[in-house]
């Protein structure tokens, strides 16, 4: 096995395991900076929701819970296919790897499509903060804060999805060329970590934005 792994190991590493662990550690470190990046927005959300609970409660009701829940399921399913991609690489199944990556891209694109429809709908209902903002519930001024945060948080999340889909497209092309096998699949695994992280952010965005004023 050592002879087989050797071509994939860069000269500064002792062996393939050390190389893989270094990549994983670096990727997690990057993801932690991403946690802090989104964390600023989550903190802003907590501050303003504490300050204006009634406005946030009423504004949250304007979001479509069915589409939000649908997108949650779509994103979790894309995480499943991403995990299966890593499995496919680990067991040397190139066909399954390409199919799973394509499915992940498909689910990711579906998510963005639903999100785009939601944005379009909010635009038509005059719920985009600014001069044309119209809100019939209580405290419209502070309801704008909720929608500002809604667009900033889901927008930043969507941007991460677009980057992720780009990464997956490159991975799919490389997988089809047979660049990954059970000895070397670090890029698949690291892109997987990124994709699951994007899923993690949505896991918190969904209850905080969509589920708050339902009862």
């Amino acid at each position, binding site marked *: 096995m050592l002879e087989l792994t050797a071509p994939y190991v860069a000269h500064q590493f002792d062996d393939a*395991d050390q190389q*893989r*662990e270094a990549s*994983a*550690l670096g990727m*997690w*470190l990057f*993801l*932690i900076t991403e*946690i*802090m990046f989104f*964390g*600023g927005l*989550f*903190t802003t959300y*907590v*501050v303003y929701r*504490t*300050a204006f609970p009634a406005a946030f409660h009423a504004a949250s009701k304007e979001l479509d*819970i069915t589409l939000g*829940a649908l997108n*949650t*399921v779509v994103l*979790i*399913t894309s*995480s*499943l296919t*991403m*995990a*299966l991609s*890593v*499995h496919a690489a*680990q*067991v040397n199944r190139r066909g399954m790897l390409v199919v799973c990556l394509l499915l992940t891209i498909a689910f990711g694109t579906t998510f963005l499509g639903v999100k785009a429809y939601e944005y379009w709908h909010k635009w038509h209902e005059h719920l985009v903060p600014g001069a044309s903002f119209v809100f019939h519930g209580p405290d419209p001024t502070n309801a704008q804060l909720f929608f500002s945060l809604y667009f900033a948080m889901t927008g930043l999340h969507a941007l991460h999805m677009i980057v992720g889909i780009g990464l997956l497209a490159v991975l799919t092309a490389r997988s089809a060329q047979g660049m990954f096998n059970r000895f070397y699949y670090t890029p698949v695994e690291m892109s*997987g*970590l990124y994709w*699951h*992280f994007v*899923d*993690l952010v949505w*896991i*918190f965005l*969904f*209850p*905080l934005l969509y*589920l*708050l004023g*339902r*009862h």
Partner: protein
Amino acid sequence: MSAQVLSVRTCFAVYFVLIALTAATVGAAFLDLLYFSTPVALGIACAKALLVMLYFMELRHSQRLVWVFVGNGVFWLTVMIALTMSDIISRGWLGFPGK
């Protein structure tokens, strides 16, 4: 520590639990739980996040140094939110002029 092969069965099992938890959080959102709505929603979200990290992101089989890194991330996020809120909430407690 060598890479563990991600099991397909585990992936599907975790997936179905995640879907069930999503259904649970949507259901709970329609119940009037008074002050417990947000803690319940966040509790379920944390459970889902843990499942994704432990199984899909393979934190289970990661080196301990990765655990230390992740713990640090969670710690500083908690510091950011907790210290900010301790300031915001306690600002009105003392009647300093110009607070």
